């Protein structure tokens, strides 16, 4: 095998998830002075730069046939995010778990990472509305009110159980659906909930129909926002910026699979008006988080 994963990822990958909680993660070195306890990067505008989409932690997929198969289902090392973000002046990163069957442990892990890197990360919970049916309300209340998580990431269509809890907690939902149209099933019923549609509707811009559908969805619902992560086709990417108000677009990277330095540059090169860029790079997610970091 010729893999040359950097040392940090290799070390993280070689760690057994059984010893992770309270073990390796709590033993991770605090960031080497970049983020720990630091304030924001030198002021460039009204808002900090916040990456709204990144994954951390180790999967718990024992018994499935996709355990230890793909990198995004295996491990996501927060050190990589810290290092990349520091290079380009990203002040905060929203983090949530990679794939798990159930997420109680993984969400504790995220909260632990947030604590280990003070002033660096904003933690979101993740849940599977099918696998965790009946448990989510209690879990999410504890995760938000006791563990300090600030939002919810979903890969599975949300149920009323999930959305009622989200509404009551007043937290945003970042959702990567199979199809953009699935948003129509719940957005009209939850006009006070802020939704973020991951990857501008199509991961890696693989399906341009979906990316156009995402723009149209955001036009119909002011509480739907598009996250820029893993969107790469220039014409489609720029179309979103041309057709939507800047208040509905959020900078996201999809670290650690993608690199926040490159995804930030994808927005920078557009040379947006300063006020719009500031909203997209941080002001909007800050608003969705209630105005506090």
């Amino acid at each position, binding site marked *: 095998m*010729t893999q040359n*994963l950097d040392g940090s990822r290799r070390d993280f990958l070689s760690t057994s998830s059984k010893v992770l909680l309270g073990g390796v993660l709590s033993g991770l070195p605090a960031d080497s002075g970049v983020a720990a306890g630091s304030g924001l990067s030198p002021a460039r505008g009204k808002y900090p730069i916040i990456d709204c989409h990144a994954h951390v932690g180790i999967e718990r997929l024992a018994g499935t046939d996709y355990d230890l198969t793909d990198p995004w289902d295996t491990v996501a090392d927060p050190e990589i995010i810290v290092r990349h973000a520091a290079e380009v002046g990203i002040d905060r990163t929203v983090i949530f778990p990679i794939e798990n069957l159930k997420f109680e442990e993984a969400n504790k892990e995220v909260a632990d990472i947030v604590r280990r890197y003070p002033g660096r990360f904003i933690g979101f919970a993740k849940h599977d509305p099918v696998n965790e049916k009946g448990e989510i309300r209690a879990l999410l209340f504890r995760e938000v009110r006791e563990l300090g998580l600030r939002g919810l990431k979903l890969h599975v269509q949300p149920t009323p159980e999930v959305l009622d809890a989200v509404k009551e907690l007043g937290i945003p939902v970042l959702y990567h659906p199979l199809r953009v149209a699935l948003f129509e099933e719940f957005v009209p019923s939850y006009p006070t909930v802020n939704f973020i549609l991951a990857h501008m509707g199509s991961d890696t811009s693989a399906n341009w129909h979906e990316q156009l559908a995402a723009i149209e969805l955001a036009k119909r619902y002011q509480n739907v926002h598009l996250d820029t992560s893993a969107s*790469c086709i220039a014409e489609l990417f720029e179309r979103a910026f041309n057709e939507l108000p800047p208040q509905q677009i959020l900078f996201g990277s999809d670290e650690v699979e993608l690199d926040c330095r*490159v995804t930030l540059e994808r927005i920078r090169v557009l040379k947006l008006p300063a006020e719009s860029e500031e909203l997209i790079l941080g002001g909007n997610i800050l608003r969705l988080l209630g105005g506090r970091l």
Partner: protein
Amino acid sequence: MSSRVIDCHGQGGSGETWADSGVTRRVDYKVELLLQRAAEAGIDQTCIMAPQNATYADKNRQIADLCEKHPDKLIGFAVHSPQRETGRLREMLLEEVRSMGLKGVKSDGHPTRELLDVVAELRIPIMYCPQGYGGPPAAMYHEMVMAYTSVNFILPHLGSYRSDTWWAHIDAIDLAKRYSNVYIETSGVLSHRYLVMAAQELPAEKLLFGSYSPELDPRVEIYAAKLLKLPGAKEAQVLGGNTQRLLGA
């Protein structure tokens, strides 16, 4: 070593986006946009070729016309389908290279002996992305590159456009290590860590900067290439010197 920046993978004219695991769409790539973005990115010259079409004689002529209009900025590549244009490849490519001034060829489909014989005769590089034609890069490349050791092959996107198949990036690196006539083009590698891996494991002579402009943004693609932070001379090779060498310029 020249320090000119040469983008080895740009596109011009109308057609469909190349077959891959995504959904193709009709496109009409304007050369004005390509040139404007290239200038903003600090790219001196771009190798330009047609998007996917049924056949390519007309499209290649349009590419040659564009190169005639912008001789300092554009380097033309032909595109051909070894399957749909079989029987005419030698005649067409000889004319396109010797009379129309095109400098390389992109293969729309797995290259055949008919195509590779004329490519070897003309001593031009061939670009071929196996994605969308049924196989991962390693399986599709081995026999071909061993059979035509005098031909330089350019494997786009580090073996997987948009990093759709992450392990194809590792296959691509292994191919370039194994065969002296396989080169890697850098555009559209969304999982940047594999570009880093390629830069760490391959000699700089094996990497060619490409942007896939204007489908992708060359300002972002060159940023990703420079993010590799190669030493100056090696970066110059990747950003232009290697392509210049392959084109015999």
